[in-house]
């Protein structure tokens, strides 16, 4: 079997300083297969990709391409050998058009562009992928999914034999995911081997031919998809069984209404949002990317205040004009973008946790009570199991899941009565995801009213008591958990009669 492998790793090891990132890793990729690689954050997936694409060189072991040992010293050498990768955040040059972007690294010879040839060649790459994309349009304004298509076409122009997709769907909406999966199948039909890395297990079951699980830098198993079960795969990934994927079928018993919103809107952004949220209830906002769900969260948190409708909080009608005002009312917003909006990455854990509640720690002349601050942060480190030896470590050095917990701690310290989560588990591994879900359920049980904005349908159905579906800035429906199914939510999100293959 390994004789026919297009890409093979034999006993590859790689260490950074004293930490072993990969240990004795062996893996064979066959031509024309979709090979999923799964593992928790920190399992070694990134290092594995970087070794296959020439970013890192292995300390020991061999890489073989079509049976021949190779040394990959750079991404260029990897591309020459036929291996390329696309990432969650594609690289496109906004001022160039699509065709120019596709051929960015191998333009034709000569001083002048032969535009007609360029467009014809670009179309020849894009059309077989089964997508409609005008190769003449400027790359600025392309959606994330379209940018990924450009990157895939770029890789194809280099005649790659192995294409690595690293978390390609993390930021895509449901129908964009369906399209990307179709592209992956089209690549497979062209004989390209696709290495597919994703935290979303449902996608893997839809698309993969074989699944490799890695854990702690080691190869755990490689099995044909037909022999894999979800629980088995998760057990392999975390080394223990996790029971968090059970769907919720009945709503939690809840208390009195905490937040009541009617006709809520913001001029030109969204409108007509109505719901009552009770203490202890979890309301999920579902919908496609671009349905303006985040804007509802930002309006309630005062960052981009509502211009229409009424907000009644704990029986009082009010307006929320700034984040500070929202926080003083007991509203917290855990943003989806940890890097840009959530955490000061170069500052230590404790400074991030205390950030939203500095006032509580300030005494005479505004001096910070550093003992109290460090005790408070240490308490959260233990309570939320933030994996770090102490709270002096820069947040930027933590894994995504642990960063998410730091962000949670920051908002828990403000003692919110209404807590808004925006994509709380994006880009974090199954283990951390289960922990975050556990925290959300515990908070609800304590009587916190919770809004979860999520594009991850299984997550919505696992957490929600009610599901508010949005489409193009309007409320498309409000379902109780008993009547909410994947199909119904998708149908509402995408519009009637426009059902997308789930």
């Amino acid at each position, binding site marked *: 079997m390994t004789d026919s492998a297009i890409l093979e790793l034999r006993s590859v090891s790689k260490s950074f300083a004293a930490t072993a990132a990969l240990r004795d890793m062996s893996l064979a990729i066959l031509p024309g297969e979709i090979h999923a690689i799964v593992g928790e954050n920190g399992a070694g997936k990134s290092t594995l990709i970087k070794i296959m694409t020439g970013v890192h060189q292995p300390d020991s072991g061999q890489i073989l391409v079509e049976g021949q040992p190779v040394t990959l010293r750079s991404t260029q050498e990897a591309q020459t050998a036929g291996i390329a990768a696309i990432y969650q955040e594609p690289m496109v040059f906004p001022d160039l058009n699509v065709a120019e972007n596709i051929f960015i690294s191998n333009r034709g010879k000569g001083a002048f562009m032969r535009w007609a040839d360029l467009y014809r060649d670009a179309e020849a790459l894009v059309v077989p992928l089964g997508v409609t994309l005008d190769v003449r349009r400027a790359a600025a304004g392309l959606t994330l999914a379209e940018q990924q298509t450009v990157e895939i076409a770029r890789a194809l122009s280099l005649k790659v034999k192995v294409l690595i997709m690293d978390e390609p769907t993390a930021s895509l909406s449901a129908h964009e995911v369906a399209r990307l999966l179709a592209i992956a199948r089209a690549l497979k039909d062209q004989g390209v081997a696709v290495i597919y890395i994703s935290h979303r297990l449902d996608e893997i079951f839809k698309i993969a031919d074989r699944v490799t699980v890695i854990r702690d830098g080691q190869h755990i198993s490689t099995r044909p998809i037909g022999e894999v079960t979800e629980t088995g795969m998760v057990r392999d990934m975390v080394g223990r069984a996790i029971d968090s994927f059970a769907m919720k079928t009945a709503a939690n018993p809840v208390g009195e209404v905490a937040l009541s919103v009617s006709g809520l809107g913001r001029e030109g952004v969204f409108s007509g949002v109505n719901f009552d949220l009770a203490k202890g209830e979890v309301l999920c906002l579902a919908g496609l990317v671009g349905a303006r769900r985040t804007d509802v969260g930002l309006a309630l948190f005062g960052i981009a205040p509502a211009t229409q409708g009424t907000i009644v909080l704990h029986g009082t009608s009010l307006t929320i004009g700034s984040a500070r005002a929202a926080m003083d009312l007991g509203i917290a*917003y855990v943003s989806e973008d940890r890097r*840009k909006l*959530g955490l000061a990455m*170069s*500052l230590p854990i404790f400074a991030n946790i*205390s950030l939203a509640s*500095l006032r509580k720690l300030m005494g005479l002349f505004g001096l*910070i009570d550093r003992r109290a601050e460090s005790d408070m942060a240490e308490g959260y480190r233990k309570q939320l199991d933030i994996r770090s030896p102490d709270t002096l470590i820069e947040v930027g050095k933590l894994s995504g899941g642990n960063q998410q917990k730091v962000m949670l701690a920051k908002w828990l310290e403000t003692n919110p009565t209404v807590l808004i989560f925006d994509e709380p588990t994006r880009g974090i591994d199954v283990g951390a995801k289960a922990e975050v879900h556990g925290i959300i359920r515990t908070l609800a049980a304590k009587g916190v009213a919770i809004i979860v904005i999520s594009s991850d349908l299984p997550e919505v159905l696992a957490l929600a008591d009610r599901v508010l579906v949005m489409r193009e800035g309007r409320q498309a429906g409000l379902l109780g958990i008993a009547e909410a199914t994947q199909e119904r939510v998708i149908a509402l999100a995408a519009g009637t009669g426009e059902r997308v293959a789930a």
Partner: protein
Amino acid sequence: MMQSLKSWEGGLLALFCITFALNAAFAPEFLTLQNQINLFQLSIEKIIVALVMTLIIINAEIDLSVASVMGLSAVVFAFLVNHGWGGGAAAAACLVVGFVAGSVNAVLIARIGIPSLVVTLAMMIGFRGFARVLVQDQSLGDFPGWVTNLGQKGLVGPLPLSLLLFFILLIVLGIVLHRTGFGRQVVVIGTNAEVARFSGLNVGRVKATLFILSSLAAALAGLLYAARLGSVRGDSALGFELDIITMVLLGGVSIFGGKGSMVGVFLSILIILNLRNGMALINVTGHVQTGVIGILLIGSVLIPNLIHDLRAKRSRA
């Protein structure tokens, strides 16, 4: 971050020791207390303003208008005294001028949202122009005796008022930056203003406070400058902003904001003072001195970047 800052301050300390030892070796009288005081006095106005500039740059902003505010304050003081005002009233008026100048900067930057580089560049030209118009080409002096005494003589023993003010500000601003909630907000906003906004911090108010503080410090420094020299002109303190920013950056404060310490800036001030003194001792001209400090600054920006690149390369190899 902590580690790299500490090693940076270690390097500054070593550099300071070298410059200090060389000075002492070349000129035995260098070590006398009066000489040490003189060393500070020669640049006292700049180093006072550099302390507030440290907070501004850590906040990821810049204030280019400080030298013009200094000049304006000095000129307004001389103008009022020459028009029959008492020294105390004139000084108070100058602080009001500083407050107003800072408020103009603050409104344009923090409320309207124009980049501080643009606003303070315009104000640098505007305030300077105002100072020149006020006194034309004259040189104004004739200050009351108590003013020049305060500017030149010791207030507590041999220590003059300006040096006392510098050390008080150094300690107070050091505590503000590193120990208070306000200082924490300055650092967080400098690291990522959006994260600060999403955490409920009042970004505009912090920035406004800093720019008003900066102009107030500059106005105070302008008064000290007038009192020390005994006479002022429309071009007093011209170009001081660059020396001030140099002191801050050499102290390890990141021009991108979010990083820096008061100890680092204090060490950097000591190094620059000693370097200038030492070079003057061996008859290096002022222009060459400025060149040497420029090279030091380029080095201070390059070295951390080179170290960073080398580390990245090593971890990749």
